[in-house]
């Protein structure tokens, strides 16, 4: 009876973690609330780097490759399955799928649940026609709908730049793009966005995207006592994991955007490391293989050092017994 782990989130980090652990002989249940695996790779179109120093690939092609690796390693997929809660050091999960709920039981949990958009409230930010950056990217690239012709993007960094190009590739026009303090912004219109006001100027737009950046989504790790610490350059509150991405020794690991917002290449490298670390803890992988994974990307050590340097860490007390 081989040891069993759950990997939650089938994006680049999760697919990589699942494949490595499964190849080592662990039984791996890979969960994703979406019906399709691939995470951010299913809605980004511009080329991304998958491995440090290698040529960039189309996200769609990369997703196919990672999926094939996971399938070949006999990872057990649970798509359209939401992991709604984690308990008992990650050894129990509450799963909701197809209108029913069940409890997953196993030895360890790898949290690769990615990141979500950061909020940026301003007058009119909730008006119809205002989307989160990722939401608009999904609408345009995954579902192939332009919700309007004239766009404004609030945000000045990578996400905003990528989105601007995505909009133009799709045939839309970017009327204004940038960042301004919230009191200087206002969105308005009749039955939906018609205008974005920035300072004294008004711009006629149909769609506004709030693309100021991303934050880790590590709630499932927090619930089982993984400490969080604040680092703006990692997207805000990040789980404090050690240099093998382990939080609760032997039981809970976090990798990819959920452990600090970064690139696809970093997500894949961290995913592989977490999968290897989990397998090593279960006695199925030796330390040499693990050491090789740590050096796969220069950012791994940088991120590890950054997390180790964070002073204040918060741990949420776990109240209550295991589920059963």
């Amino acid at each position, binding site marked *: 009876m081989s040891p069993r782990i759950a990997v939650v989130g089938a994006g680049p980090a999760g697919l990589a973690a699942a494949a490595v652990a499964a190849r080592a002989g662990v039984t791996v249940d890979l969960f994703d*609330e979406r019906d399709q695996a691939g995470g951010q790779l299913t809605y980004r179109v511009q080329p991304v780097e998958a491995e440090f120093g290698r040529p960039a690939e189309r996200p769609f092609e990369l997703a196919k490759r990672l999926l094939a690796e996971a399938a070949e390693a006999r990872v057990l997929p649970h798509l359209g399955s*939401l*992991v*709604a*809660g*984690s*308990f008992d050091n990650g050894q129990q999960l*509450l799963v*909701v799928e197809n209108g*029913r*709920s*069940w*409890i*997953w*039981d196993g030895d360890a949990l790898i949290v690769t649940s990615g990141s*979500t*958009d*950061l*909020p*940026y*409230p*301003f*007058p009119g*930010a*909730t008006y119809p026609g205002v989307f989160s950056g990722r939401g608009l990217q999904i609408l345009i690239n995954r579902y192939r709908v332009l919700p309007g012709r004239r766009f404004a993007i609030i*945000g*000045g*960094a*990578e*996400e905003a730049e990528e989105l601007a190009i995505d909009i133009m590739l799709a045939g839309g026009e970017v009327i204004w793009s940038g*960042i301004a*303090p*919230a009191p200087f912004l206002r969105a308005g219109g009749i039955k939906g966005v018609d205008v974005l006001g920035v300072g004294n100027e008004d711009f006629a737009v149909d769609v506004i995207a709030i693309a*100021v*950046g*991303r*934050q880790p*989504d590590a*709630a*499932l790790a*927090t*619930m089982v006592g993984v400490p*969080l*610490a*604040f680092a*703006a*350059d*990692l*997207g*805000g509150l990040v789980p404090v994991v050690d240099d093998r991405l382990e939080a609760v020794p032997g039981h809970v690991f976090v990798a990819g955007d959920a452990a*600090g*917002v970064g690139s696809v290449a970093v997500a894949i490298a961290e995913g592989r490391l977490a999968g290897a670390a989990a397998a090593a803890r279960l006695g199925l992988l030796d330390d040499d293989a693990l050491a090789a994974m740590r050096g796969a990307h220069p*950012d791994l050590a940088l*991120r590890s050092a950054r997390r180790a340097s964070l*002073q*204040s860490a*918060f741990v*949420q007390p776990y109240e209550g017994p295991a*589920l*059963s």
Partner: protein
Amino acid sequence: MTDSVMPEPFDAGATLVCRCEEIRSEEIVAALAAGAATVNDVKRRTRAGMGACQGIFCVPVLAAMVSQATGTPIDRIAPMTARPPVRPVPLEILASLTEPGS
């Protein structure tokens, strides 16, 4: 690493900070003036963070506002407590919880 823009503290009257529960900036400000000193305090007094998104789209703003109101550096602001379920789930689905391993 990322160059995300962290939200700034926000005091602009009727503008919504928590979009799920429709909590205005002025209500957060009032809660802080009345003595709320943590994100959890603000959540308990105003319902901000209790809605469908479970704080994803407001907690970073609440944290910035608590930081400014209490003079505490942002990295010393305790996060909101995360509780299952991570998304809204109809009670009838949880009531039908089947046995482990099935």
